């Protein structure tokens, strides 16, 4: 397969950045999108040019590192996948492919396609946990039965990989899907109840501080989420938030 790649190149956070064109030949169908990018980089190194910088690690759709905006879609065409799980069989001979970084105020570009998502870590640090120290003396794991349905829903919310596709996709750059996934996971489990009110208030407060936009319920995040995190979580977080806000001292 021969393709034309139009890739965002930006040498640093302060640089203006621009799209650059790279032809690439001999791409195979069974290659993953990132293997195609590796091939391009091998070529660029050979030509003495700087290779394209991008985040990636596990290459099996679970670490949440990879983050490319491909042909106007977070993680490119296809549903329920990350960039590393996208394969070249989704493209055709002669295609032009546009590759950009996540774009959001709260995700500043570091270089080329690499962005800074540490705002997500700070939101988790604001309350995305149960305050239990390591002691080995907690309750027996089976002491509190949890209805399977609740456990399964908590699990579904907890599968968020923190990649940021939801933010990149949202026209408001809202992080509601990400934040609500963690709030929901813990709200659905008895262990999360004790700190429930503070958690939702603190996490939402931090989300606002980081410069993420508001949610206008377009649902685009759910469509592009590689893990299929449901919008229901946002509704649940709104309920939690409202409850906490009216009962707060």
């Amino acid at each position, binding site marked *: 397969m021969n393709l034309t790649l139009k890739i965002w190149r930006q040498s*640093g956070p302060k640089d203006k950045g621009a799209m650059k064109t790279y032809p690439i030949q001999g791409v*195979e169908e*069974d*290659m*993953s999108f*990132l293997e195609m990018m*590796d091939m391009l980089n091998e070529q660029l*190194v050979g030509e*003495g*040019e700087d*290779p394209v910088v991008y*985040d990636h*690690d*596990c*290459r*099996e*759709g*679970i*670490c949440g590192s990879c983050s490319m905006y491909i042909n106007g879609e977070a993680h490119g065409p296809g549903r*329920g996948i990350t960039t590393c*799980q996208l*394969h070249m*069989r989704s493209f055709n001979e002669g295609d032009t492919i546009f590759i950009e970084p996540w774009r959001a105020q709260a995700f500043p570009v*570091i*270089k080329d396609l690499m962005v*800074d*998502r540490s705002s*997500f*870590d700070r939101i*988790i*640090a604001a309350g*995305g*946990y*149960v305050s*239990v*120290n*390591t*002691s*080995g003396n*907690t*309750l*027996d*794991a*089976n002491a509190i*039965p949890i*209805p*399977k349905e609740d*456990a*399964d829903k*908590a*699990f579904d919310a*907890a*599968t968020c*990989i*923190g990649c940021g596709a939801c933010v990149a996709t949202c026209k408001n750059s809202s992080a509601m899907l990400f934040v609500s996934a963690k709030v929901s*996971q*813990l709200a659905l*489990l008895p*262990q*999360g109840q004790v700190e429930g009110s503070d958690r939702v208030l603190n996490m939402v407060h931090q989300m606002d501080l980081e410069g993420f936009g508001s949610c206008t319920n377009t649902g685009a995040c759910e469509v592009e989420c590689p893990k299929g995190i449901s919008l229901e979580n946002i509704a649940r977080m709104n309920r939690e938030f409202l409850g906490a806000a009216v009962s707060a001292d």
Partner: protein
Amino acid sequence: MKLDARIPEGPIENKWTKHKAEIRLVNPANKRHIDVIVVGTGLAGASAAASMAEMGYNVKAFCFQDSPRRAHSIAAQGGINAAKNYQNDGDSTYRLFYDTIKGGDYRSREANVYRLAEVSASIIDQCVAQGVPFAREYGGLLDNRSFGGVQVSRTFYAKGQTGQQLLLGAYSALERQIAKGKVTMYARHEMLELVVVDGKARGIIARNLITGELERHGAHAVLLCSGGYGNVFFLSTNAMGSNVTATWRAHKKGALFANPCFTQIHPTCIPVSGELQSKLTLMSESLRNDGRIWVPAHKEDAEAIRQGKLKPTELTEDKRDYYLERRYPSFGNLVPRDVASRAAKERCDAGLGVNSTGEAVYLDFSAAIERYGKTEANIRGMQNASEKEVLKLGKDIVEAKYGNLFQMYEKITDDNPYETPMRIYPAVHYTMGGLWVDYNLMTSVPGCFALGEANFSDHGANRLGASALMQGLADGYFVAPYTVGDYLADEISTGAISTDTAAFVDAEKEAQDRIDHLLNNNGSKTVDHFHKRLGKIMWNECGMERSIEGLTKAIEDIQALRVEFYKGVRVPGKAATVNQELEKALRVADFIELGELMCRDALERNESCGGHFRAEHQTTEGEAMRDDTNFTFVSAWEFNGDPSSAKLHKEDLNYEFVEVKTRSYK
């Protein structure tokens, strides 16, 4: 050098309790003045960093990823073992201990393994308290499944994403301490040197991967939780960034490297498809609970399948060879990983492989789909369910159990595993070897500890499935927080560690020189070019089967490759910016040195055991043949200027509580 594992005296079931009771403590006021560095934020690192911070130490945590949540523990799929005996199937601490020792082919240390089994139950309690959403039964209690090499169901799981859920639990505990200011997090940092002052680990040199700056960080103890080194094979199930640099640099500063050749080749991975492939993807061992492994019984059928003239679903039962069930009737498809991998290789070498490269076997779910479908139809009272209805119900059950794995498989291969069997082949997955540690998890450099996959201690020559997560969290939550304190008790009057001393200056210069050399080299070949060649040598000669000729040749080839690498590698760009090629080059340079040591270790260990299979030492049935008289020891290598001159030390393994037997799963 005398190796002292410092194993406490007394009966095995009392050792840890007694040790904990006698271990020295550091009072809370003093903990506030003690700094601890943790390198790596996977299960071992994140849990250790969080726990040490909770106890009151000042922790600095490092990871090369952009967030601690992305460490490769996140990709672990199938589950975590714990001797809870919730299923009332006869499990116990002793049985988990015994299974692990036997699974490791009698090459691990009894006392460490017993402790691992002992704390395993607390891990599950701790994780549930953190809000880890494990799979549950309809009654609301935790569900279990079976993994290879055992005959009980002791594996706790969260679909095929157990590692993710456990790591996010540890990560949230870590973030809580970051918020409190007890942990300072250095993401996008890579450790390049261990700093040793007067014989004690006193800090690290880390490269800031954004600015390229070399930073000096001092501490009273350094915990290396940097994972394994499977990427020495280039293709493995490890993440692209997983590397040996932290432990290798510690090795070069005096930490002994133990059993480097003990590598786990996992039987069920998606086969290699082409030259440009960058990594291999695991299909969880949990699939062997329900999947049956087979190849065609006859060569002509295998040949027809390879040519696309025959579909696997068209082969009748009598034309299939369920070789694991045939060879190992009592464990069947759930034999340990080393045994399953070798059996797959044996069939493929015999010409029965089922993909174009001839290196793949089938993992088939049709029987499970039918069985589950029938049960579900009965539960629903559908007495006359049609075959179609039964299969539909069965597929739903299989999807609920393994949905994400099936989806992953389909995305990569474009095949639908609900309709046609998966094609799988063994791939490098885990390394049992690692830094030598004593009972306290301290390496031979005082103050430098190694936790999780980075150490060698618990899995012997073969790790059982679902035990890596157990070990990472055991070390980080329940072992190191106590044992590191024993060392730190001597450090309460040391005061802050200055980073202006000669040792820091020298270590920084060493790292700087390596970087300068690579950037100014002006060679013509990329880093990946060398990494791929190293990987091929390692896979062919130090992979599933090893021989004296192959290993001897591999050592020569690797030595030549090293010379060529330093002459011919091209690393573009500058040091003072994001430079991913430079990051790779620094890692590959260390992999090349490690590769040679692995081959030497494999050559020196003139027996077969677990995943280390020497062609010269096998039974007539092709099983690994140990030599207990001469090799019941841990190989611990001391760096001596060059991998070729590394010096071998031996820690004899004494089995006081388990009778050493020939491992059999027949």
